[in-house]
């Protein structure tokens, strides 16, 4: 996509007063990095860039920025799904947010495959979570993690200790993934930001697959749809039909 097109769109949105800020990418502190840019003046749109270094899901800033007025966000397909999801979850006013769509040209790395046997899978995750530093960057970068107080930060009850090690980290990651059910647009920010390389996004991806199979639902596709676990039909799959 031509960068000039993005800049023009940003300029129009700012000039018309439709939005107060455009969240996009600008050159980072080195050629190989971009960094989020908050463009508030039409004169600054030339700072915006669009290239292979633009990898962040900027929807992570949507709630923060919408507080100060209208916000436009440069978004790939998966990022736009996050924004739709936030509207569905009543975290964002749909009139307060605009999306400047960009094509998804991200060079996704190959995902590690989950092992076949259950025992190996358990060991796979234990080994991954053993590395976890509990920095919570996965949560902080995730647009779906909008809770004011994360369950893991609660003191009463304490769901997991802050200690290092696979067990408490398992509790954190698995619960966080489940909380993302019907919210994950597969932007893979959680895995990208992880400083120790845990493929966190695989958890949410598994869940989204099952959400699709069970409820014929895909996260962040329809602003007017109810969140998948916030609704039901009497005809939903039932444990008795599936042998409990």
């Amino acid at each position: 996509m031509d960068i000039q097109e993005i800049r023009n769109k940003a300029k129009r949105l700012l000039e018309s007063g439709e939005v107060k800020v455009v969240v996009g990418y600008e050159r980072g502190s080195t050629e190989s990095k971009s960094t989020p840019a908050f463009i508030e003046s039409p004169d600054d749109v030339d700072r915006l860039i669009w290239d292979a270094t633009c990898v962040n899901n900027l929807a992570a800033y949507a709630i923060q920025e919408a507080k100060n007025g209208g916000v436009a966000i440069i978004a790939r397909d998966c990022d736009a799904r996050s924004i739709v999801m936030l509207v569905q979850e009543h975290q964002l006013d749909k009139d307060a947010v605009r999306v400047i769509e960009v094509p998804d040209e991200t060079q996704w790395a190959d995902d590690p495959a989950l092992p076949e046997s259950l025992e190996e899978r358990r060991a796979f995750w234990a080994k991954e979570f053993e590395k976890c530093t509990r920095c919570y960057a996965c949560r902080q970068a995730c647009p779906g993690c909008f809770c004011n107080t994360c369950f893991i930060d609660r003191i009463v009850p304490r769901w997991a200790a802050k200690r290092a090690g696979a067990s408490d980290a398992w509790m954190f990651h698995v619960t966080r993934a489940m909380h993302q059910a019907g919210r994950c647009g597969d932007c893979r920010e959680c895995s990208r930001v992880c400083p120790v390389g845990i493929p966190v996004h695989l958890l949410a991806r598994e869940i989204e697959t099952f959400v699709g199979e069970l409820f014929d639902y895909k996260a962040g596709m329809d602003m007017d749809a109810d969140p998948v676990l916030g609704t039901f039909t009497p005809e939903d799959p039932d444990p008795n039909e599936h042998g409990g």
Partner: protein
Amino acid sequence: MDKIVTKDNMAAWLRSLREKYEMIGPVKRPDGAPEFRDIDMMPPGIIPGGIEVALDNAAWLMPPKDYLLPPTETLFTYDEKDQAEPLKVPLAGDKPRLLLGLRACDARAIRVLDHVYLDGAFADPYYAARRKGMVMVGNVCDEARWSCFCTSVGEPVEWLKDLDAVITDIGAGFVVTANTPVGESLLDSSYLSDPSDQQMNLKVAAWDKLAAIPKRPFADKLAKDFLAWDDPIWEKYARKCLGCGICSYLCPSCSCFDIQDERVAGQIERFRCRDTCQTCYFTLMPSHNPRPEKKMRMRQRLSHKFKYQPEQFDIIGCTGCGRCVELCPVNLDIRQALAEVTPNE
């Protein structure tokens, strides 16, 4: 004292040191990223290679602080049923540790940790037990990564002198320089010999190269009072901060911790674990929170390193290792923030 060890003898020499020390060094993970770990834990076959590959200037992902301050550490256990002595404090291992592959910035970070944990009316006994008898062997970086800025916050060549011994790669072999009697004892080995003048010249050249890493534009500002409290840059940079703890958890000199109790399998354990000033929970009290906003927490982290620690210990807390620069998910580069901040007049 300087000695030379050939590339062929290097592995044998290091292996001989393992008889006396528990050896920790940078090894490459299967995915290629280097990290600090206990070399004893590696399968025996790959020890020589494991050591060799990591003696270059890769920014080890995990800082060496893990071996002085484990990510989680038991302070004591409490057994309600034991009437006589319910409180038990775990004892540190008795085999001395040798940290291998420390860079100048790592050495500096340990100096900072020493101040925090050993200075003042109360020394930290858990840290002190690990630190005591610990042998530190480092190496001279062959080049700066894009994220490094050690020369901007001090003199890395001087920092190397905190180490017991320093290894300099001179191509055909390694010059090993002992700075302390312990370091000299390491060099007392048949695998090492006296270096030639030419070899010594190569070593000096490598050290000079380290000292000549260009300084960043903010370096001149690092006088004591250069971080203005109400500077708008705090807001500007905090805006893109995600509020995760990567910068502090992977910082070699960040050492703040939390203390928690946990009851597992009927036993009570009090442990401490890493914590970060970048979350609102760090200072949250029932009555109020002194640092409720991201910008305050970012100001705290930089001020702690560049203002408060210089006032407390006469040492800049940042070592310029660049981990926070390299690993920040939003490329919040503290070097830019430091360059932009207005000095207090």
